[in-house]
Every structure is written in C-alpha cells, then in structure tokens.
C-alpha cells in the first residue's frame, strides 16, 4: 500500500546503489535514484542512458548497482526499457525463461536531461506511444554535466554554460526551458509526476505510484549539480527545495482519467497555492547559483531577473488553471 510507506521503513530497506560510486561530492543524482529504488515492490531491472549516473556508477571493473542494470546509449534508454518489458511479457506468456515467474517487474529507465529533452526524445515518445509498462526517470540537472556543462533543451533562460557562456553581449542561454512534462502528458500516459529530493517521502510515494500504474509512467526530478550550477556542495538539497518554493519547479502529479489529464499539486506546491504570499521570489533561487552570477555582477540585470520572474509566474498561473 502506498500510504503504508514511511521513511523509517524505507530507511531499513537496502540501497539499490552501493557506495563507492564516483559521482561528485554533494551530487543529487544518487539521492533521487536511491529514494526511487527504495520504492520498488520486488524484482527490479534498471537501465541508464549515458550521463553522470551511468558513467560514475559503472567504471570498470566496478559496478555500484545492487540490481540488474543495463547500459544504454545516449538516445535509447526508453527503447531498452521497452525491450526489457517486452521480453518479460513474452517469457510470462510462454511460461519459460528467467523472468517468467515474476508477477511484477519494476522496469526503470534513468536518463538525464540531455538523454531526454534532446537526444532521447524520439525513443521516449515511441515507448510512451506503444504503452510499455515501465517508469522513466528524468534526472534534470539542466545541462550536459557529464561532458562539461554544455547547454541542453532543459537549461533555463539566462543560465551560463560552456556552450552558452555569459558575456558582454549575450547573457547566457537565450532560449527558455522546454516544457517536457507537457510533451509527455500530451502522449496521454497514465502517470506523470515531478520530484524534488528535498521531500523524500513525496519522492518515494510518487515512485511507488509510478511502479504500480499499468503502462508507462514519467517522473521528472530536479537535480541540482554542484559543478554546473556553481554553488557550495552542501547546498544541494537547499537548492532543490528553493526550486519548489519559488515555483521555478512546482511539484505536481498528473493522471490520465477518462481521456483527459487530471492535475494535482503535491504537498509543498499545494501549500503555496493555498497561501500565495508564501511563494518566494525567484531572485532567492537565482542568487545562490554561480551560473546566474552575471545577473548580479558586475551590474545588476533587473530586466533579465524580471523576465525570469514573469516566466515563472506565468507557468505557475497556467498550472493553477489546469489544477482548477
């Protein structure tokens, strides 16, 4: 039962990812991935697209994965997960093969924002359209951090990356963040949710719902990156909390019922909807991160800060209208 999941119970469950992996100190990716793997119901198979999580957990001859794990190329995590699901279904139908005995298998595809927004979008779209029963986890650190902080479709406006550097003329990335959740929701899949590591129980419960639902589920997690976002390594959780409190990254879930998407705000975002005065200005989120430093020094760019605030407010308003 979903409601029976508690932090104390989950804390006693062994981790899906062992220590000794080589992600940076203060990286949020394993925080989210470990929480999600705590929510599994039993037999689990994971696959990762190329990205920080994949390269840092599988450096030969070591593997950090305590469960069956398949490496994917950058673009095909969703296709690999589809294949795993199809193989399991075929084995169950024939009644033979190593997976035939399992009633449920939690199949999880972990991919970063590069492997989802840009490179993996067609494989993801295909897998969602075919309706395979798997969970796709987007670990969104808003740039290609693994190869050295190149911009991706998930990089927010005005963020400085190595391929969209902030200079005298161009203030960082000039495009806005791609609305990946809406693209996925438009496929009419049964469950979509956004996650922030600052609320562990929320992450675990949403992950369990994603596993239990029949058909594809999509989890979109904000994953602050201490190297790419340029902040002190101990602030990781605080930044993922601020992203939600400023409504830069609202937490909600979306189910598909009777042919239409039904949105529901989760705990912290629902609290902001009830008390709009508790919504923090996006300034607090921006000034903690070095990738937005050019908005404050050498001279303060209020025009850019205001346009980011306007973008946040507009998206939040649209979401509130959808929630109803």
């Amino acid at each position, binding site marked *: 039962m979903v409601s029976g999941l508690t*932090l*104390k119970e*989950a*804390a*006693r469950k062994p*981790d899906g*990812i*062992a*220590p*000794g*992996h*080589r*992600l*940076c*100190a*203060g*990286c*949020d*990716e*394993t*925080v989210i991935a*470990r*929480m999600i793997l705590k929510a599994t119901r039993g037999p689990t198979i994971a696959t990762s697209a190329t990205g920080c999580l994949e390269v840092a*957990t*599988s450096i*030969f*001859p*070591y*593997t*950090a994965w*305590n469960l069956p794990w398949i490496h994917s190329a950058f673009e095909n995590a969703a296709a690999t997960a589809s294949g795993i699901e199809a193989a399991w279904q075929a084995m169950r139908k024939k009644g033979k093969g190593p997976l035939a005995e399992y009633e449920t298998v939690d199949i999880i595809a972990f991919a970063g924002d590069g492997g989802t927004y840009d490179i993996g979008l067609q494989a993801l779209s295909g897998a969602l359209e075919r309706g395979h029963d798997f969970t796709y986890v987007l670990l969104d650190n808003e740039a290609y951090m693994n190869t050295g902080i190149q911009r991706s479709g998930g990089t927010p406006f005005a963020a400085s990356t190595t391929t969209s550097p902030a200079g005298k003329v161009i203030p960082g990335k000039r495009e806005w963040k791609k609305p990946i959740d809406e693209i996925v929701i438009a496929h009419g899949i049964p469950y979509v949710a956004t996650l922030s*590591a600052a609320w*562990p129980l929320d992450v675990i419960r949403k992950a369990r719902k994603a596993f239990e639902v029949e058909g594809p589920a999509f989890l979109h997690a904000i994953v602050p990156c*201490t190297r790419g976002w340029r902040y002190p*390594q*101990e*602030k*990781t*959780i*605080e930044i993922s909390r601020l992203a939600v409190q400023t409504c830069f990254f609202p937490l909600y879930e979306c189910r598909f019922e009777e042919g239409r998407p039904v949105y529901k705000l989760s705990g912290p975002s629902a609290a902001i909807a009830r008390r709009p005065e508790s919504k923090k200005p996006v300034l607090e989120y921006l000034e903690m991160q070095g990738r937005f430093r050019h908005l404050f020094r050498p001279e303060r760019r209020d025009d850019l800060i205001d346009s980011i605030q306007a973008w946040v407010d507009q998206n939040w308003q649209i979401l509130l209208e959808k929630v109803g």
Partner: protein
Amino acid sequence: MSERFPGWRELPKGAVSPKSSIEYKTGDWGVEKPGIDLGRCTQCTLCHFFCPEGAITISEDGHPEVGMDYCKGCGVCAEECPVKCIEMVRKR
C-alpha cells in the same frame, strides 16, 4: 594497480562488471567528515536519504552510522539535519 583484472574474453556474456563498487573506497576524497551528536539525534533518518553516497546507514536501534570508507565530506547531512546535531569536522 598490480592486481590483474579479467579481460573481455574471460568475462561472462553481457559484460557483467566483476566487482562491486563497495571495494572502491571514496573516503579519502573529502577534507571534512560528519560528527554526529547521537544524544540530540531524533532518529528522523533524513541524513540517510540526503546522503549522496549512501554512506550513512541506519543501525538496528535507529541511529545513523557514517561509513567513513565512503564519505566524501560534502556536508549535506550537516546542512540538512533538522536539529543540527551533525557537525563537519576536519579529517586528520
């Protein structure tokens, strides 16, 4: 690295990595380590979830234990502890 690892011809099909990363100690990465005041700990288990390494485990009696073999000293646990009973101290 005098130890020899099996090459790709000798490995089982599917390229299964022969070793678990728990044999790879990352404890020497950091300059600081968490010191936990267990007297004030409320056993909320949040440090276990927020540890990026999974180095903090919860013992039988509900208290956190830090695996110093793996702790990279990032300080997330000290920052996020609700009762601030974790303090980062310099490794010697």
